[in-house]
């Protein structure tokens, strides 16, 4: 069922410059050439009956309900498949057409359960609507004939039901699965009367390849595919457009509501990031927001070995402020800090960094981008001048060559992956650089032209080898380089990269990638037309993450693949607001807009606006905070919406640091792993409970709109205001829009941004200012932000983390479609049905030599620690490499990862950990300790309820 508040024009918009004018039912209509008659009529306010057509899918022409007459044309063509032409005279309604349509509807209705009053789609059923539209008054065939009305329901999917008895075999679901999502999980099986929708090969939806994106449910014109929430709760009565709080795609959704209850989330057809599509997380996994585990009252305690005490907001804030003041008085002003959240809004992250800089009086503020895309910020700033991706997602439609490096879009960024798949099916060439065989390498109707299966930790050597081929085979876009780049830096780089040590024949021993493949990839990237690079954490989370980012930028500069649509350097950001949290000044060395704290002009600007003296020295990064906590110089931390105890590497080091601190203030939805070490707990608010903005991976600022009151009584920004006021630094905002107004006043790249402007435009891609009042979809079109592009030297420096006889395998980590990062949200939804535990992927060869079979418990031991997981024997990983996800705290994936980090940013090296794997029968010692500690903390939480009664 389509969104209750959206209309359907029947067929997709056509992007053609040439316009044609025709007449429909006597009305003159002008539309882009190629527009269907159905859409042209709809644009003129004339509804043509339809069932198999919907404007999210290409027309199919099967239902025969949309027939029209066109003067001079024989018969009654389907308006959905007939393009408008200049001078056409179209009739959509007359007796002949009415009779034809009634006849069609009679056939449909003769094989349909007439249970409209108890049907979940009642009032929003297109079949019901069409029966009314054609004036169906009788069914001459009766209802006693052979029919499908008693077919069973498939209720295997946790979020939606497939009721075959209501299916009209319009193929909209099948086409949505193929053409929008690209999964091909659905098909029409059987022929004639036996035709029916089949998931997989007559499997249940859950057992099939269905990824539960919801595209089929949205496309279904009847109640055949219905959300279980609608079946259970009834239809929503209003909707609010907001932005998803999962990955960095930043999909626009309509939250469909009954009062203050979310009934379902439906991707907005107007969504400029997602173009009406969604994934299993954003579409269905929102139930965490009202999960019983939510903590909605503030709590405090003197020690982490004591039960929590529920208190009022006033008492909790006063206690937190008092502790911060006490600690600063005792240990100095630099002994405290804060961490902003990429899951919170721009306005909230701005406030937290302002709190730290203005109220704490230091620059000890950092954000979770530290552990994901901080190298992107560093590397792109050095080369292009701006810490952000260069393109809009729409740009992929113009790409001829797509290079995916260290990213797994179908799992990590599924909605954008679907756009990418559409482009690949239309003919673009795909290069995958990844140690694992990610799904994109081979899937229905998509096959990578090249998969460079490199050894983990050798990205720089491989990227350099590609650059070497481009330079030495004279594939450089000399005109672009001469016009757009620094000449001396290019010459220096050219000399460097031409060195024999970078030749693919030399790097082959290091990377494991055959030289011929590297040369082929370099030639394709440099000469294959518009070439776009998309990369993820497989690039950044290395000891040379920043170097690889610079190497990627070098490739784009050398080949002129920047500054227009279809090309570019595109970091696929992990969390919904990673880009925004970085933009908002969450790093300890930068004010909002990526301006260094030592820059006097910027500092004076903020000092004047905020009315305080600001520190000109950089503060501590998150890993530095841990080190400083252990040496006693850092004693208190305010953590908003971040779970460092689970997400950061070398867990035992992190938890030791947390235990060493005197006051940890956690603001979150749940008692997460970090909160188990906290002394003050402030209830967080989900994205459904507040106003604000998120900025996605394409720099798109989109509105987050409050659809229900904060369960804990305060939105996150209001809690930060209260804490700041209690510290003696009052901030005066009555609505997040006023915070954005301040950001715009102080940040040139946001100068034109306001809530009103976003509401007007739908969303805005920064920079947005006087020069670019509607935003900037493609960056660096005429010049780079830094003026001329700068080639950077990128020597390959092997990581300290080496495999040896004791630790012979390399562990790399990642995430999966159904779960999200630390899992705090998705583990509290039915998404766990698809992924109920983290497992260790191990190649059959490595498994066999260890006597491990699928499902065995295996111990994974590194230099940092040891944990135990069940094995999944898989050829997705290469011999010598093992892989796991990190969605469950008890897995202890980060107990194994080490303290090694990117040389420039301290981004942890999650992707390379030398390990040994052995078959075991018991959990690890860490897991035993974790279970005891967690049980104790849960008891303390449960006792909180007792104490407050």
């Amino acid at each position: 069922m389509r969104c209750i508040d959206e209309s359907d024009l029947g067929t997709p918009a056509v992007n053609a410059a040439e316009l044609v004018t025709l007449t429909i039912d006597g009305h003159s209509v002008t539309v882009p050439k190629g527009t269907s008659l159905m859409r042209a009529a709809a644009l003129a306010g004339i509804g043509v009956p339809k069932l198999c057509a919907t404007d999210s899918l290409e027309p199919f022409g099967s239902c025969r309900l949309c027939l029209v007459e066109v003067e001079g044309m024989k018969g009654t063509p389907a308006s959905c498949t007939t393009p408008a032409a200049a001078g056409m005279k179209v009739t959509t309604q007359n007796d002949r057409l009415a009779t034809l349509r009634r006849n069609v509807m009679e056939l449909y209705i003769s094989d349909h359960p007439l249970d409209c009053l108890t049907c979940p789609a009642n009032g929003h059923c297109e079949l019901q609507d069409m029966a009314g539209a054609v004036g169906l008054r009788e069914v001459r065939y009766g209802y006693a004939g052979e029919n499908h009305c008693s077919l069973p329901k498939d209720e295997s999917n946790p979020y939606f039901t497939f009721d075959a008895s209501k299916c009209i075999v319009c193929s909209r679901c099948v086409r949505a699965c193929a053409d929008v999502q690209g999964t091909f999980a659905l098909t029409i099986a059987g022929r004639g009367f036996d035709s029916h929708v089949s998931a997989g090969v007559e499997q249940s939806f859950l057992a099939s390849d269905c990824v539960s994106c919801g595209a089929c449910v949205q496309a279904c014109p009847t109640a055949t595919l219905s959300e279980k929430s609608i079946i259970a709760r009834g239809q929503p009565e209003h909707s609010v457009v907001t932005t998803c709080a999962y990955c960095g795609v930043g999909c626009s959704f309509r939250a469909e509501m009954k009062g203050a209850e979310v009934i379902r989330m439906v991707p907005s057809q107007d969504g400029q990031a997602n173009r009406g599509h969604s994934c299993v997380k954003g579409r269905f996994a929102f139930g965490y927001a009202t999960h019983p585990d939510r903590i909605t009252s503030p709590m405090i305690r003197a020690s982490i070995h004591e039960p929590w005490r529920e208190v009022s907001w006033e008492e909790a804030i006063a206690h937190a402020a008092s502790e911060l003041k006490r600690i600063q008085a005792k240990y100095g002003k630099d002994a405290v800090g804060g961490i902003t959240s990429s899951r919170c809004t721009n306005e909230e992250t701005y406030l937290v960094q302002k709190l730290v800089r203005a109220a704490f009086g230091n620059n000890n503020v950092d954000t979770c981008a530290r552990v994901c895309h901080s190298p992107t910020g560093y590397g792109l700033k050095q080369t292009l001048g701006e810490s952000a991706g260069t393109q809009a997602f729409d740009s992929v439609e113009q790409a001829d060559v797509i290079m995916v490096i260290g990213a797994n879009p179908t799992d990590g960024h599924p909605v954008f992956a679907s756009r990418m798949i559409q482009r690949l099916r239309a003919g673009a060439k795909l290069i995958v650089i990844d140690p694992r065989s990610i799904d994109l390498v081979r899937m229905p109707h998509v096959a990578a032209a090249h998969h460079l299966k490199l050894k983990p930790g050798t990205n720089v050597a491989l990227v350099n080898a590609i650059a070497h081929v481009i330079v030495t085979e004279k594939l450089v876009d000399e005109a672009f380089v001469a016009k757009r780049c620094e000449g001396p830096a290019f010459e220096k780089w050219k000399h460097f990269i031409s060195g024999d040590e970078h030749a693919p024949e030399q790097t082959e021993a290091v990377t494991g990638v055959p030289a011929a493949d590297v040369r082929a990839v370099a030639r394709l990237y440099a000469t294959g037309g518009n070439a776009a690079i998309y990369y993820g954490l497989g690039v950044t989370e290395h000891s040379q993450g920043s170097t690889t980012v610079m190497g990627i930028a070098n490739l784009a500069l050398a080949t002129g693949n920047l500054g227009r649509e279809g090309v570019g350097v595109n970091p696929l950001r992990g969390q919904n607001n990673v880009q925004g949290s970085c933009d908002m000044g969450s790093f300890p060395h930068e004010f909002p807009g990526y301006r260094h704290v030592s820059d006097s002009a910027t500092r004076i600007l903020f000092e004047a606006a905020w009315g305080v003296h600001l520190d000109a020295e950089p503060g501590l990064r998150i890993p530095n905070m841990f080190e400083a906590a252990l040496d006693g110089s850092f004693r208190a931390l305010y953590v908003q919406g971040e779970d460092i105890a689970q997400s950061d590497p070398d867990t035992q080091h992190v938890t030791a640091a947390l235990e060493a601190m005197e006051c940890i203030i956690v603001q979150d939805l749940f008692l997460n792993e970090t909160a188990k070490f906290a002394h003050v707990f402030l209830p967080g608010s989900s994205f459904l409970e507040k106003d604000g903005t998120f900025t996605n991976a394409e720099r798109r600022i989109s509105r987050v709109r409050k659809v229900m009151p904060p369960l804990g009584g305060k939105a996150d920004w209001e809690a930060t205001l209260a804490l700041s006021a209690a510290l003696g630094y009052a901030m005066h905002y009555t609505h997040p829009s006023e915070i954005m107004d301040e950001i715009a006043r102080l940040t040139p790249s946001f100068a034109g941004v306001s809530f009103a402007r976003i509401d007007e435009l739908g969303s805005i891609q920064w920079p947005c200012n006087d020069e670019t009042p509607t935003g900037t979809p493609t960056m660096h079109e005429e010049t780079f932000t830094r003026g001329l592009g700068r080639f950077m030297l990128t020597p390959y420096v092997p990581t300290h983390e080496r495999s040896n006889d004791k630790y012979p395998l390399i562990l790399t980590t990642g995430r999966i479609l159904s779960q999200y990062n630390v899992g705090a949200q998705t583990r509290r939804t039915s998404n766990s049905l698809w992924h109920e535990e983290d497992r260790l992927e191990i190649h059959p060869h490595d498994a066999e030599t260890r006597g491990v079979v699928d499902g065995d418990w295996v111990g994974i031991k590194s230099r940092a620690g040891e944990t135990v997981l069940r094995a999944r024997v898989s050829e997705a990983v290469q011999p010598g490499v093992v892989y796991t996800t990190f969605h469950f705290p008890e897995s202890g994936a980060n107990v194994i990862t080490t303290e090694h980090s990117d040389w420039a940013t301290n981004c942890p090296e999650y992707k390379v950990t030398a390990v040994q794997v052995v078959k075991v029968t018991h959990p690890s010692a860490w897991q035993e300790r974790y279970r005891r500690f967690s049980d104790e903390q849960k008891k303390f939480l449960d006792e909180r309820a007792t104490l407050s009664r």
Partner: protein
Amino acid sequence: MHIERLVEMINDIAANQVADPDNAVDVITSHLKRFWDPRMRAQIIAHAEQGGVGMAAEAKAAVARLSL
């Protein structure tokens, strides 16, 4: 902070300047000023002044400039 960790960090910065030895010390110095908290810089300065055990030559030279 553990000085061994700071030494490893500064050596990593130095190692990544190997392709441009003429500018290595300048780059390391600038990096420390722009990204290291003052207490980290103070600690590495103190360590360098005591001989800088484990520090790469370029790292020592960069820290010496910090001290000026």
